[in-house]
């Protein structure tokens, strides 16, 4: 037992012992020190790298007779050219619709009969194929996954069906004001770059997709050098590792494609209204460019963002716009960190007549975080918050496995999780102040609002020339 752990336990027991009516309430006492334990014990993790570059990770947890197995490819929508936007999501969906000797319905029949799940999904930076079910079905599920990843069929009738569904889903998604805001916010910041288009593509780009495009994309991206095979749950590591070697060891392919061109830096503020005359509540996004996932300033950025708007009721934006002014149900800020620098933004919603007031409040808080960056006291609270959130987010084996896989996706050191809390505690006021000045700029922040243009125009004109666009 380490000295710190003894101290923490002592503090816990003191906390238990001292709570009497005449003692100081527990919330006025300094919080106990967090316990700095290893995230996962070494004997539960089994890793190796196959000669063809496939990385393998198995995490044992025998508590329940369930398991999941997946292949993650460390490339996603970010590698698409703007004119083929959506091909990653399209390919992923089509991989669920027939593989090996089985058609779409036959494949679904095998999975459904086991009460299991099969999902293939694409994000900006990765594509994940996963099966999950009871551990007694692990052999059947292993075979399903291998077919889906290595031998997808891309049948023409299914390709046509998925294209038609995707186009309809895009039309329907545009009914949702939050989706409209996300799409328009990206387009405002990154016009011309892949990041400026929806992750799932547009009507125009998806209409061009078909079986051949999916097959070509699969060939380009599903390559051993980009692949991580992982399993977690009720598994015996050795037999599983042997099967993984036999199945994925012979996989050949070209080098993974580059992660995509960096996005342009938006130089000036734009004020955009997506006109939805029917809405009584407007969706608001305010922001500009941000940082990449591998940026060395990641931790100061995280802590700064928690203090500004990523930390729930403890953050400045929530305290002001919701708790003090009652203007919204929720507000948050976010640095979207991808292989390349994603956007920084503040997102919220409010009743239409209050939009100008809320935008003013957001811009003032952005200015204030530069002028009055988090003090030592504020930073101490945020450090403790992030360290605690970290432990909570790694409660289940599936969560731990996903976090370990993510390190491989971004090529980060293997001990990143174990050193996280220590590194968070080491972040200084100088570092967070520096990133506030370097990375946040209200003057360059674009303002995007979804709502009735007629009423919003006058409220938004003080911030710049208003561009009104159709949804």
């Amino acid at each position: 037992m380490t000295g710190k752990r003894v101290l923490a336990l002592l503090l816990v027991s003191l906390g238990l012992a001292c709570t009497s009516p005449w003692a100081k309430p527990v919330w006025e006492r300094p919080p106990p020190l967090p316990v700095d334990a290893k995230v996962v014990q070494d004997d539960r993790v089994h890793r190796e790298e196959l000669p063809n570059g496939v990385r393998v990770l198995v995490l044992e947890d025998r508590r329940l007779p369930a398991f999941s197995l997946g292949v993650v490819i460390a490339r996603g929508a970010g590698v698409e050219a703007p004119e083929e936007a959506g091909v990653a999501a399209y390919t992923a969906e089509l991989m669920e619709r027939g593989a090996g000797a089985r058609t779409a319905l036959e494949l679904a029949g095998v999975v459904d009969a086991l009460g299991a799940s099969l999902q293939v999904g694409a994000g900006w930076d990765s594509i994940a194929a996963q099966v999950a079910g009871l551990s007694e079905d692990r052999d059947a599920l292993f075979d399903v996954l291998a077919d889906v990843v290595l031998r997808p069929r891309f049948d023409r009738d299914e390709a046509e069906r998925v294209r038609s569904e995707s186009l309809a889903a895009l039309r329907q998604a545009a009914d949702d004001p939050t989706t409209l805001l996300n799409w328009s916010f990206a387009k405002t910041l990154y016009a011309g770059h892949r990041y400026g288009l929806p992750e799932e593509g547009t009507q125009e780009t998806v209409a061009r997709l078909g079986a051949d495009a999916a097959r070509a994309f699969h060939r380009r991206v599903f390559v051993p050098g980009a692949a991580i095979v992982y399993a977690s749950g009720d598994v015996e590591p050795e037999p599983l590792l042997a099967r993984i070697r036999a199945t994925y060891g012979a996989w050949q392919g070209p080098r993974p494609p580059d992660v995509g061109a960096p996005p342009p830096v938006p130089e000036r503020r734009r004020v955009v209204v997506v006109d939805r005359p029917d809405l009584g509540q407007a969706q608001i996004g305010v922001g500009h460019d941000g940082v990449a996932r591998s940026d060395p300033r990641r931790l100061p950025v995280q802590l700064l963002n928690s203090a500004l708007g990523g930390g729930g009721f403890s953050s400045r934006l929530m305290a002001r716009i919701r708790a003090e002014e009652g203007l919204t149900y929720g507000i948050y800020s976010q640095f979207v960190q991808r292989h390349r620098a994603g956007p920084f933004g503040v997102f919220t919603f409010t009743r239409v007549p209050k939009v100008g007031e809320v935008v003013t409040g957001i811009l003032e808080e952005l200015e204030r975080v530069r002028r009055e960056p988090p003090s030592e006291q504020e930073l101490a609270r945020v450090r403790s918050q992030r360290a605690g959130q970290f432990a909570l987010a790694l409660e289940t084996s599936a969560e731990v496995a996903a976090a370990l896989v993510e390190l491989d996706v971004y090529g980060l050191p293997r001990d990143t999780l174990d050193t996280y809390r220590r590194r968070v505690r080491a972040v200084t006021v100088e570092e967070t102040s520096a990133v506030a000045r370097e990375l946040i700029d209200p003057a360059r922040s674009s303002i995007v609002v979804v709502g009735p243009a007629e009423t919003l125009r006058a409220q938004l004109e003080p911030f710049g020339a208003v561009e009104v666009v159709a949804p």
Partner: protein
Amino acid sequence: MRRGRAASMVLAALLLAAHAYAVPFEDPAARTRVTPFENGLTVLTLEDHTTPVVSLQIWARVGSGDEARFTGLAHLFEHMMFRGSANLGKEQHSRLIEERGGEVNAYTTRDETVYFTNVTPEHLPLVVALEAERLANLDVSEASLADERQVVIEERRFRTENSPDGRMFEALMALSFQAHPYRVPTIGWKSDLEKMSVAECRAFFAEYYAANNLVVSVAGDFQTEELLALLRRHLGGLRSAEQIERNPTEEPEQSGERRAVVYFEVAGPIVAMAWHAPATGHADADALDVASEVLSSGRTSRLYRALVYDRPVALGAAGGFWELARAGVFFAYAQVRPGASADEAEALLQREIERLRSEPVTAAELAKAKRALEVGLIVGQDSSSALASRIAHEWIAFGRVRSLEERLASIRAVTADDVQRVARSWLEPTGRSVVQLLPPPPAADGAKP
């Protein structure tokens, strides 16, 4: 009825458990300990040291189904529980937990209001002290109510008024239930939210937040004896109530189909239908769950095949049994493709419901549906919050924590005849309510749409 069924299920569990799974496993909830306090508070504890996380939840047996005058009171009051007390300022409760990396939130349903906190174990004494502080010393003032009322009205706009799904669901419940308080949306009608008074909130607190109307459920990394001592010290002195009022209204039998249309700016319509179904604890529950799975589970399910795959009418379609404390609902809905016909989607949904009534499900469908339910029960049992929720819900709904083995045996006992029988008895055309959410019709010249 319940007792006889339970005995036969225990027998079935004994017979089936031995060969059910290749790998034997322990149901974590089997170790739940129930400790009644003298003031009527019930404490459920489930100690498990696998990961350094603990979830503490307070379940108040009050939801929107208990509201008599102002709708939305149970939910608005849930917000007020975070607005400060004698010794703490507004939202300070949340801040203290969040600053330690914890998660703290609450939700309200038609039957319950649930406050939950997930933390690393060293912060458990703080969590208990904060719960005790607001339960003993809550401060509901004019100023805090005025702010929070606006927050809730924004929440209502976000979840309901601006949301096609929210509007459809609100209309469906109000149509299916005409008398029962479940007809009212949990978030309340806007006019009631605007008029809610401090006196109303205080009376609600006095009535429903008494010790004997609360259940404390804790799962995860803690020492049971120490925690019980701590809870006793902080919550053992809470007052209890002699009588807790319940809304007496029951839903009269429906004697014909009901229909409604809601206009909303959407490209793709939504069609939804509902039938009255049994309340929690009814013997037909498992068969209705199996019927839900046959309709909705996976790409081989009947509704996916009929509305999404074979005929491209919908982007998604599902059905399900929603079990509530005092009445249940069975629903089916389709997210219609832009440009496709809502009437056709409705006819296809209806055809599949009729099929459940007119012929037994196939052996393969039955096996698949049961398997999906079984897997659903087993996976997801590895987080403290999931376990704390499960044992609290079981305790409130059934007065005991049903074991996984009992649940699995009960599901396995469902036959194809059972599924057809429950479909016939509950999914009658005369008990159906249908809502179509459609794009507004084009306005006539000069008329306002």
